[in-house]
């Protein structure tokens, strides 16, 4: 008997100690429903689901967890990135994934900024990525892997700059799952979904919280209209 069969068999036998045969059988349709028709549970209240209210909540939560944020017009995203470089004394250089959205938004920077495209090799100080959604509940970014967005770029740089479209800010994580199920219907679920809440940190040395444990030391979010 394979280990698989042994384990599954033992589970069923043990459960029979507490459940009748009918109850054991009734589990099949029940689990089908739970798997195919997931239901949201207890959702923390949000002040309102209007986009402007969600933006405000997102900003408030993200700042509480040491992210930095700017809000700007679409046309000024490039300027905001430049401002970020100047503010942090960084050379005008960054890496991005092969993402058309990012390419359009940073187009005006091509003249005086070195822009590398592709998967980071660990030598990049700044990576710029476009996220799919922002979750107002906790100021969290939802990033999805793909040819446009190498997951490595979210973790290797010292500074992670994330572009977030205003109308992609949702209230709860459950909203993200609903949208992803629609977007990837009939296809495989994305290889990696990162829910990122602030810069990397550790409390392993005498409980003192320090930023930049292995992932980025800074997380800068540019929300554009």
């Amino acid at each position, binding site marked *: 008997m394979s*280990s*698989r069969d*042994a*384990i*599954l068999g*033992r*589970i*069923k036998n*043990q*459960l029979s*100690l507490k*459940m009748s045969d009918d109850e054991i059988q009734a*589990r099949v349709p029940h*689990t089908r429903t*739970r*798997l195919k028709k*997931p239901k*949201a*549970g*207890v959702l923390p*209240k949000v002040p309102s689901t209007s986009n402007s209210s969600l933006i405000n909540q997102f900003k408030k*939560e993200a700042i509480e*967890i040491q992210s930095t944020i700017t809000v700007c017009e679409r046309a000024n995203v490039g300027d905001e990135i430049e401002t970020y470089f100047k503010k942090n004394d960084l050379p005008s250089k960054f890496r991005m*994934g092969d993402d058309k959205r990012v390419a359009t938004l940073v187009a005006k920077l091509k003249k005086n900024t070195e822009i590398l495209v*592709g*998967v980071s090799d660990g030598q990049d100080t700044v990576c710029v990525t476009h996220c799919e959604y922002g979750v107002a*509940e906790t100021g969290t970014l939802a990033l999805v*892997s*793909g*040819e446009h967005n*190498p*997951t*490595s770029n979210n*973790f*290797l740089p010292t500074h992670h700059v994330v572009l977030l479209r205003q109308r992609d800010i949702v209230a709860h*994580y459950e909203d993200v*799952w609903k949208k992803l199920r629609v977007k990837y219907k009939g296809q*495989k*679920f*994305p*290889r*990696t979904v*990162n*829910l990122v*809440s602030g*810069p*990397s*940190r*550790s*409390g*392993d*040395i*005498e*409980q*003192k919280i*320090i930023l*930049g*444990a*292995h*992932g980025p030391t800074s997380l800068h979010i540019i929300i554009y209209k």
Partner: protein
Amino acid sequence: MQNTSLQFKHNTAKALKNETLQKTMANSRGGLTLKRAKAVSKTPKFEALRDSAREIKENVLENLDLYLEEFEHNVIENGGHVHWAQTASEARGHIVDICRKTNAKTVTKGKSMISEEIELNDFLEQSGIKTIETDLGEYIVQLRGETPSHIIAPAVHLSMDQVRQTFLKNHKKLKADRDLQTPESLLLEARAILREQFLKSDIGITGANFLVAETGTSVIVTNEGNGDLTQVLPRVHVVIASIEKIVPNLEDMSQLLRVLARSATGQKMSVYNTLSTGSKRADDADGPEEYHVILLDNGRSNMLGTEFHEMLRCIRCGACMNHCPVYQNVGGHAYGSLYTGPMGSVLTPALVGIDTAKHLPNASTFCGRCEEVCPVKIPLPKMMRNWREREFEKHLSPKAQRRNLKLWAYLAKRPFLYRRATQIASFGMRMFSLNKGHSRYLPFAGQWTKHRQMPTPVQKTFMQQYNKKRR
């Protein structure tokens, strides 16, 4: 990890005298409990969330076989492999096989208690595969040849000075006179050294906080991002998880995430919550080409349907040990087992047997704080009591204890004798108090009165006064 729980009494005596340990435990004590309390006070629906989390895990346990099958199906659909392991030895075998087929020389590891449970690191090293822990606390503990003392904060028992000494001793290629006076400098050094390891690793091994049946997804929760660098950079990603880590769907997982971080560290969300599903897609820019999930039983299926069934709801937040007065005074290593504190006291006997772990369920005053803060409402004191009953039935408790309990039972079944005995005891205690209202020493209770004063009983016993009033 080799279990040494039978030495618990000796270990605790040592721990209480260990000045460095007492300092570091005092330093951490209260920190995480205050943070949790703050987070809970800011979450009006926290009780409802606990009930929801409890319901989800109960649902999982009642349908565990069905959800496991669905999970396996979806992992395979997404290009991954599932390996089933009944024992630690089988699990190690699967992992070494994968390493050999890949010709792996170096393995990086995200934090995984299951990997410690199966003693993976030693086994891999013996098979000629270099194994590097990447969680900062685990890395420090690995350098020192120790085991983690807390499931969330593995190095909580260490002072900064001890960490500094460990780095100076082990990072030999660096200048001996470099400045390591601040926690920041220690962190930066570890970051640089481990970054090198992340980039050249052949296989990344992580645990899983959750396994989502709906999508065939493994979920890891970290603050450092080490788990992510472990699993996305190498060619092969191996997940090792115990079978009860399953959750039905993404919404259920979100409920559990909401109580997990708040209970563990008082954060609303840990920094990185990552969902990994299968192997690299055709149009992925990066990611592992191979994805393996090892599902480990190792005693869990045997707990289902028994009086210890509810222990399987545990989501490994560590809140119980943060709030336990025993753990907070002796630290994790005193328990001599991988899982410590209240959850360890219930889980360890189930995994290694009550004969070996009999001291652990006794290391409790049943104050009940653990159950109060458990995000999935596990009745920990009740299960510790169940273990004590089993211990008694198997005649594992000390002879003196059994004898005294027998004597007490003899008297308690004969009310007249019992009352006489309490009158004599009451008289004796008044003698020892020397009219001070309390005693600093009582025979047969020396250990207790060493640190406490026993109040003296009033003149007459309750029954004496009651009978007098009745006449």
